[in-house]
């Protein structure tokens, strides 16, 4: 880079980075080989798996070949965000202003806190002490986070990652960021998600192997040859991690909020309102050719508790991505342990979305192969059309939730509220999810019922003497069932029994005791499979001395 008399010095940033956060969030001990998969690729693994040679980006089969006893679970961004909440709160104790880039990755402006705690190093130690999770949430073992301090977000993120390997905070002295960046491999642009793999590969093929090589090129040549993505990469490589000068901070009136006169106690209602705000915000920014890269989401309850988080995404936040952040934040808040500070006690009465940082929308180049297909675009249009025809809640897509009863395992979420690009990870489940090593021990063995009733049908079960069959508290059945009788009608007008059907085969009981720690949602039930003489297979549950058909194997 040629010497310029005046150079913009990017703000000093501290980055805290938890290596392989998704696998920590999934609750694995660092000493057990385990990995989190997304779209058949490893996205995170434990140190034990890493020593066996499992690397990020590997396919499922390759990982299993390297390490046959590896435990694989599917990626669940909601879980990762939820588990990260205690750490976010620990950071909030130290600094009021910080960005959650993704679960496991936080950056904050160093200037204020550093002055308060007496320098960068004391701040780093303070952060380390604050976020080590056993103190924050009583979690047992996690990997040590990396802390990096440097000028600019990019240099500081790289420093945090290097700090994990070195086992100590990495500090880049003020003004040294360009020199620090120059020595780095060009691959960091891809690792941190700042540039496409294709662009990085092109740089490598052109002989630009270090960031310094790229920074040495004159900026006008870079924009002529590589366009906007190239200029972005060049700027980062030069250690001048600033927003393009064409953007200005959004005016305060860009801030959108919605006061709910009738506080929303259902998270769905909150997310719906947030969706309207996000659509409006993204549209108004888009009209100016700009996109929001940092969004501050503020939620406030009728009792005055607040949750404020700032979310950062260098590629820009689309409306569905904003809604997803609101959903993460709300979910994490709802799942806070009882008795913690700012605990949610009432309905949400205020939602505010503030675009804290915007930049001009350079557009993104879609891949020639892969990416969205014509069928996907057509489907997205059809979803919009169907939603206007019916209602938002009538057009739904499934999201994996997990559970031991067929009706619990997936949740139908309004399609307009879901980012359809990243769907694969939201619905997949690890393996079949039903094995003893799966994430839901006690789930029913496959095959699963093809017809699942959201509202089970009441039935009566009789043994060979015509006595009603019951299940004891210890999960023991009083007598083998020999016939069942469907009940029609409803509770208010009385149940009318149908004609009895003989049972030719049955299996069970498989008892389930769910959420025994929460009196409100505690369930205790036993599951049976029954086959009647007309070859109908049923999944039957016994709960509170009553019998229900919860699904049919048809």
């Amino acid at each position, binding site marked *: 880079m040629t010497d310029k008399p005046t150079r913009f010095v990017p703000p000093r940033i501290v980055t805290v980075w938890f290596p392989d956060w998704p696998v920590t969030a999934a609750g694995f001990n660092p000493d057990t080989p385990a990995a989190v998969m997304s779209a058949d690729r490893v996205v995170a693994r434990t140190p034990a798996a890493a020593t066996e040679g499992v690397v990020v980006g590997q396919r499922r089969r390759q990982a299993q070949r390297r390490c046959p006893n590896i435990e694989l679970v599917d990626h669940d961004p909601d879980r990762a965000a939820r588990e990260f909440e205690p750490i976010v709160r620990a950071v909030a104790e130290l600094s009021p202003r910080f960005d959650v880039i993704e679960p496991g990755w936080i950056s904050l402006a160093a200037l204020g806190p550093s002055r308060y705690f007496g320098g960068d190093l004391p701040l780093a130690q303070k952060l380390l002490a604050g976020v080590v999770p056993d103190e924050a949430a009583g979690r047992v073992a996690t990997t040590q986070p990396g802390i990096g301090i440097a000028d600019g977000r990019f240099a500081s993120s790289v420093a945090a990652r290097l700090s994990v390997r070195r086992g100590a905070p990495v500090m880049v002295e003020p003004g040294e960021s360009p020199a620090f960046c120059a020595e780095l491999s060009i691959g960091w642009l891809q690792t941190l998600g700042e540039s496409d793999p294709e662009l990085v590969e092109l740089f490598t093929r052109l002989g630009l192997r270090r960031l310094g090589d790229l920074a040495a090129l004159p900026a006008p040549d870079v924009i002529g040859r590589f366009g906007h993505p190239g200029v972005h990469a060049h700027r980062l490589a030069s250690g001048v991690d600033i927003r393009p000068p064409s953007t200005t901070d959004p005016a305060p009136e860009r801030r959108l909020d919605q006061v709910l006169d009738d506080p929303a106690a259902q998270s769905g209602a909150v997310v719906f309102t947030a969706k309207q705000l996000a659509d409006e915000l993204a549209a108004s920014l888009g009209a100016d050719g700009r996109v929001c890269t940092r969004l501050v989401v503020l939620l406030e309850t009728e009792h005055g508790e607040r949750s404020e988080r700032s979310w950062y995404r260098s590629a820009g936040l689309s409306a569905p991505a904003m809604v997803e952040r609101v959903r993460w934040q709300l979910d994490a808040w709802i799942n806070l342990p009882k008795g913690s500070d700012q605990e949610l006690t009432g309905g949400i009465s205020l939602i505010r979305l503030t675009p804290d940082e915007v930049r001009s929308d350079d557009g993104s180049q879609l891949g020639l192969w892969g990416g969205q297909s014509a069928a996907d675009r057509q489907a997205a249009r059809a979803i919009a059309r169907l939603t206007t025809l019916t209602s938002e809640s009538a057009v739904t897509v499934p999201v994996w939730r997990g559970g031991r009863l067929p009706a619990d395992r997936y949740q139908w979420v309004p399609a307009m509220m879901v980012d359809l690009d990243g769907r694969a990870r939201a619905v997949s489940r690890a393996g079949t999810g039903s094995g003893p090593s799966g994430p839901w021990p006690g789930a029913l063995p496959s095959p699963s019922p093809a017809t699942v009733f959201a509202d089970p049908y009441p039935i009566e079960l009789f043994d060979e003497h015509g006595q009603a069959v019951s299940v004891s508290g210890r999960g023991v059945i009083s007598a083998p069932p020999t016939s069942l009788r469907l009940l029609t009608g409803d509770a208010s007008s009385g149940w009318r029994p149908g004609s009895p059907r003989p049972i030719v085969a049955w299996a069970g009981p498989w008892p389930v005791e769910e959420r025994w720690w929460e009196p409100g949602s505690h369930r205790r039930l036993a599951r049976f*499979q029954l086959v009647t003489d007309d070859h109908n297979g049923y999944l039957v549950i016994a709960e509170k001395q009553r019998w229900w058909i919860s699904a049919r194997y048809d």
Partner: protein
Amino acid sequence: MHNTNKCSYTRKMEQALALPELIALGDRVAPVLLAHERTLPVAEELTELFVEGGLVRGRILTCTGLAATSLALALIAPVVAAGSWLGVVDLPTFGLDAASEFGLPLERVVAVNGAGGSDSDDRWANLWPDVMAAAIDGFDVLLARVPAGVSPSAVRKVATRVQRRGAVVVLLGDLGPATCDGVLHTEPAGWTGVGDGHGHLQQRSVVVQASGRRMPGRCRRELMLPA
């Protein structure tokens, strides 16, 4: 020099290629688009049910009998796995676990449901043709139920749209005024794996009988579900 070389080469080719192979080649390069060429792939054990060897685009099928839903899932799973989207209209009991066990990728499943409650039944019956039309335009495969009270003319309009757009519709449950190009009737012959208080449901053999306007031959086939 060059020309003669080429001629002798062609002559050799002709001698080398036997007549049956030439006929096969002729078939392959024929420019006519027949019904069996507009097919979508189905699982191997189900190909014999269709004269065309697969699901023909633009047709409406129905699955009936005790294993109707499983058969429908087995039919459409390979199509959705190949990149098509599945619209599930008015089937709130759709078993997602079962679908994913048949190999159906759930990220391309969209459900449209009529609002519950008896007073909204009429409204849903009026809305159904429009919902179906929008879904047919957007998704290649549809799994649907015909609500009570739909007029025959509305059903005909839907059928025309299916044909024009080349979607595949599988209807379940009571057909009402709808007519189908093919009926796949299932008769299960008992479950394996479950006994008198032990084991669990594992598999069942199902006899599938194909009949209907566009399904000549009344083909019967016994298969295991899940395979």
